[in-house]
């Protein structure tokens, strides 16, 4: 369970206060898959950082009951001194028997297509490969809360589609609570059970996408949702939706 109650976050920038998140209330029930979409600077990443406990709210509170949290950042953030396998195993070391860690890491590397690179160092990987390692590192701990900040932005279209599919399959299998932030409206529609739209630090729309997974980007229903979200975002500022409207 992840719940935001009247959460605000202000930053001091050059002597002035910038409001990144403005009185946000939202509940993300266990097992839900929510995508958050909005323009750059609308507060998406701040929302995710608050959910991960990496930023403290200036007002209100964030409640989370997750045991294991898997976070994928915009950048890979791999440990340069560890090889690929050790980076994937980073969150498991000391918490599971080595044989089990090895088995889980091998399975995860196969999933992201990097078995042959298990002994490579991050400096030897391309940006997309590094991001795949970061995704594997987050998934391997079998999180009950997954927070993903533009996780596929650095990937080529083909790998992106494969990993989007794998993430959906994993979610269907294990049902972690997933919060995925993206500025790609198509990705938000393809992956979200629910889409939350953000503008200027506020949640301004919440829409359920009642289409079965996996979704096809050329499916007229997907295209229709995508157009509707885009139209709303392009139309500009709206009043924030009431807190009760955001809750699922």
């Amino acid at each position: 369970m992840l719940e935001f109650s009247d959460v605000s976050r202000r930053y001091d920038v050059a002597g002035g206060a910038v409001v990144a998140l403005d009185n946000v209330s939202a509940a993300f029930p266990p097992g839900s898959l929510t995508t958050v979409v909005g323009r750059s600077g609308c507060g998406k990443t701040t929302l995710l950082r608050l959910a991960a406990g990496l930023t403290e709210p200036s007002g209100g509170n964030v409640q989370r009951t997750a045991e294991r949290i898997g976070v994928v950042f915009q950048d890979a953030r791999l440990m340069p001194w560890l090889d690929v396998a050790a980076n994937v195993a980073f969150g498991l070391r000391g918490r599971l028997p080595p044989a089990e860690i090895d088995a889980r890491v091998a399975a995860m590397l196969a999933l992201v297509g990097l078995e042959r690179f298990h002994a490579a160092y991050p400096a030897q990987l391309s940006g997309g490969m590094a991001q795949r390692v970061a995704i594997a590192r987050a998934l391997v701990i079998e999180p009950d809360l997954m927070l993903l900040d533009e996780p596929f932005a650095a990937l080529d279209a083909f790998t992106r589609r494969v990993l989007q599919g794998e993430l959906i399959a994993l979610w269907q299998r294990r049902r972690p609570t997933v919060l995925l932030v993206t500025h790609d409206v198509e990705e938000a529609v393809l992956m979200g059970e629910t889409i939350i739209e953000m503008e200027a630090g506020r949640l301004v729309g919440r829409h359920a996408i009642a289409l079965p997974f996996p979704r096809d980007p050329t499916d007229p229903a997907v295209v229709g949702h995508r157009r509707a979200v885009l139209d709303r975002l392009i139309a500009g500022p709206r009043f924030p939706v009431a807190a009760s409207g955001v809750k699922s």
Partner: protein
Amino acid sequence: MRLSRTLSFAAVFAALIAVWWGAGRAGWTNAYLLPSPAAVIAALADLGRSGVLGHHVAVSLGRVLAGFALSVALALPLAVVMTASRTARAVIDPPLELLRQIPPLALIPLLMLWLGIGEAQKLGIIVLASFFPVFLGVRSGIERVDNRLLEVGKVMRLDRAEMLTRIVLPSALPSLVVGLRISLGYSWRALVGAELVASSAGLGYMIVDAENLARTDIVLAGILVIGAIGLLSDLLLKLAVQRCAPWLGDQLETAHA
């Protein structure tokens, strides 16, 4: 790449020796003040055969290694404590900063009074000279740890000890290696200073003794041996680091003292 670098390294030294040899042959240099390469090689061969050189090298090497190890053993934990504790910084930083400004050789008279003229005094000088590069290297490495990596540790719920051993210290390794290489060079410089003053063995002593006997060939031989061992120890340290931390790669090259 490595071969061409080795070749150009050797070519520079060959050219220097050729100039040295040529200047002697042409009568531009005084054979007493600057003996020819042949005379220095002959002196080296004599010293080597008699076992004198081996003895002095072993004594000096033992002192450098002991002093260097002691420096690292002191500098590492102190740097960790000082980056972790504001109180430790407030108390220890001012005297350390003062000490850092004083050349170790200026402390030789005081160290002789406190520690005598035995091994402790020589170790003291080496430690004073080699402590700061390691200490400052680790500190700057810890202070510059990438906050984005710490956030990864935080979401993985690492505790303080795990953060230190699994993220902070490995992050500081490049700076530590730079500090180690500079420190090793400083150890050699300080050692000779220590052995010049009050000693009965070691390469510094060998040089002073030869100077008193007007044996410039042995003085030069001693100087060259110190340089060669310094280069060799730096190379060995570099190889050891390359083997233990292959991910460091080119960062080692920024470590020239």
